[in-house]
């Protein structure tokens, strides 16, 4: 069977499965809709959290980014896993004990202030919307790449699917579909990895193969380092970023992960505090399977790519190269006219993406109008490494199709989780808690469903018309979460003296500072600037670390100059620190 038939088949089967689950797990009450009734087992919640967490970016882009960044890519690996340690130790158990539905719920109650609640809702909406737009785009790309449908139709199909299981089941439906989606995506990620690891190193476990030897007895990583040095790239296992910047980015990603509302809310769905801790452990275990495999895939595909294309005649190049050239993700211009592909350090283009003309070159390659004067002749989009890997390694058609189904599972599960956070923020945090406290359970559920519908339309719009800044902003959503939520929640639990004045001023200054830095250096506003002008030599990606520290200092200083929080709030803090019972902790 052809790749395309296989893809339709596998995508069809998995989609039917998701629909089936959505119908089976319909939600009847707001509690079921928001937190799946609080009765999800720790294993199921761990799987759902893992699927929720691993987005199209983790599945499709991360291994590619690492394969081009080498050691520098470690920031994502450590940052996006280490955050779970913070989550498990510092947040999840206490928030579960607190026992409400959302992060703004906690901020609003702990800081006894609707202003704090509103600030939290706004932060949650900014973070979630930037994130979800990227997912819808991911769905569109997978559809267009593998099923040859228009990218916009792909987005619309994705929207319909997410809408169905989110509307019917709320958190309950989403949780159980995510369990299925986790299984699909991890299977799809691992199968090609096993194949390629076996092919290249003779060891079927990619984590071991990465440190193994290739033909001739040389260690794979040494060989790759040598290839890199020969072609003028940096040594793969070293890096180019400064140690401080690697440190700052890793910390910002970790604390950002722990502060993301759609991740935190998952820990409201388990029955007990004990389960919240355990569930974070399962989630990280399941995530670690992908995150320790990704760097191995990065090394395999990097080596494969260099060996397949470097200094080879274009005429002899395998067909996958030309296919991806047709979709615009590879571009080659024969600068020295020798018909061979020179792949060396330096950008082959002026600008970020190739601009194709309609003409074909002497060798049959697509011509581009923005080739640079650098020696390097080849442009390869980082996103194709995972998608093209099975083709590069000559794997069977069903494996290639599997990767498409896996990419869709990853994008859809994350999108669904985010949309739920958005709708909850509107129906629960804004309408129920602020505008109409007397709203009935049934009416609130209706509002939640309308909010999800509207949110999907907006997300779909951004998926079809992606604003240029989305890609830049998605990476920075972590900085925003690190600069706003993380300190407010941590201080709320660990510092009994923290009051509303402190927390609000900290959150506002933190997020404004982060937004300012991001706009200045990423979007060129407020006079812009280059890496020379960075404050404390910190990149915008790592600036969340600094904004977070500023937030903490301001919160602490302001809170000590203003009155202590009321007794009932202090009692509440005492109560969430103790795992058992929903009642009071102190008997004053």
């Amino acid at each position, binding site marked *: 069977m052809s790749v395309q038939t296989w893809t339709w088949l596998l995508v069809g089967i998995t989609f039917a499965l998701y629909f089936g689950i959505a119908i089976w797990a319909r939600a009847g009450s707001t509690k079921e809709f928001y937190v799946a009734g609080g009765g999800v087992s720790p294993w199921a919640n761990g799987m759902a959290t893992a699927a929720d967490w691993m987005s199209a970016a983790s599945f499709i882009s991360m291994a590619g980014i690492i394969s081009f960044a080498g050691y520098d890519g470690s920031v994502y690996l450590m940052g996006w896993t280490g955050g779970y340690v913070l989550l498990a130790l510092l947040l999840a158990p206490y928030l579960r004990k607190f026992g409400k539905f959302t992060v703004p719920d906690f901020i609003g109650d702990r800081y006894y202030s609707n202003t704090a609640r509103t600030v939290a809702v706004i932060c949650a909406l900014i973070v979630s919307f930037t994130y979800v737009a990227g997912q819808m785009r991911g769905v569109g790309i997978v559809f267009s790449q593998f099923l040859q449908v228009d990218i916009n139709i792909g987005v619309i199909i994705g929207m319909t699917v997410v809408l169905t299981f989110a509307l019917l089941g709320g958190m309950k439906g989403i949780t159980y579909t995510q369990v299925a989606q986790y299984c699909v995506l991890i299977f799809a990620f691992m199968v090609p990895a096993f194949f390629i690891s076996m092919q290249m190193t003779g060891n079927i476990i990619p984590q071991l193969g990465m440190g193994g030897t290739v033909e001739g007895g040389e260690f794979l990583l040494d060989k790759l380092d040598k290839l890199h040095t020969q072609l003028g790239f940096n040594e793969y296992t070293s890096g180019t970023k400064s140690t401080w910047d690697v440190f700052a980015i890793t910390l910002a990603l970790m604390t950002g992960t722990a502060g993301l509302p759609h991740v935190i809310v998952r820990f409201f769905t388990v029955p007990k505090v004990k389960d919240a801790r355990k569930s974070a452990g399962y989630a990280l275990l399941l995530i670690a399977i992908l995150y320790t495999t990704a760097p191995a895939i990065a090394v395999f595909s990097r080596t494969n790519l260099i060996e397949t294309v470097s200094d080879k005649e274009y005429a002899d190049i395998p067909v996958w190269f030309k296919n991806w050239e047709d979709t615009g993700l590879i571009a080659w211009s024969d600068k020295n006219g020798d018909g061979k592909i020179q792949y060396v350090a330096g950008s082959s283009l002026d600008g970020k993406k190739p601009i194709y003309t309609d003409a074909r070159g002497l060798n049959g390659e697509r011509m581009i109008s923005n080739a640079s004067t650098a020696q390097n002749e080849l442009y390869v989009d980082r996103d194709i490494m995972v998608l093209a890997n099975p083709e590069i390694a000559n794997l069977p058609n069903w494996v290639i199709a599997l990767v498409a189904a896996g990419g869709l599972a990853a994008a859809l599960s994350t999108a669904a989780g985010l949309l739920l956070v958005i709708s909850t923020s509107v129906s629960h945090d804004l309408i129920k808690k602020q505008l109409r406290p007397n709203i009935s359970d049934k009416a609130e559920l209706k509002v939640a469903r309308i909010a999800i519908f509207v949110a999907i339309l907006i997300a779909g719009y951004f998926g079809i018309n992606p604003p240029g800044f989305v890609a830049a902003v998605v990476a920075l959503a972590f900085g925003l979460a690190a600069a706003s939520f993380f300190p407010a929640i941590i201080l709320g639990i660990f510092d009994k003296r923290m009051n509303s004045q402190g927390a609000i001023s900290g959150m506002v200054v933190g997020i404004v500072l982060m937004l300012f830095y991001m706009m200045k250096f990423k979007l060129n506003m407020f006079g812009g600037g280059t890496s020379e002008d960075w404050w404390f030599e910190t990149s915008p990606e790592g600036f969340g670390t600094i904004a977070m520290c500023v937030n903490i200092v301001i919160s602490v200083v302001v809170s000590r100059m203003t009155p202590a929080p009321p007794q009932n709030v202090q009692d509440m803090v005492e109560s969430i620190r103790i*795992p058992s019972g929903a009642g009071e902790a102190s008997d004053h």
Partner: protein
Amino acid sequence: MSEKQKNATAYWKENLKYLIILLLVWFIVSFGCGILFREELNEFRLGGFKLGFWFAQQGSIYVFVILIFVYVRLMNKLDKKYGYDE
């Protein structure tokens, strides 16, 4: 302070002690071995890996997983000790 409150304070103190130890390990494997001291560790090897590189792309993640499960065990025991088990 009532008995109940004393119990709660003692529980919280032990909890904080565990947190500090576990987070210290968390910091050492990732920020220490994987970032700050990776050059020094790269002098040593683990099979085909330079050690600092291994910590950054593999080792730290394994330790993270272990840390959470150690925490779960410790806290379950602590809950029992102070009668907060349910």
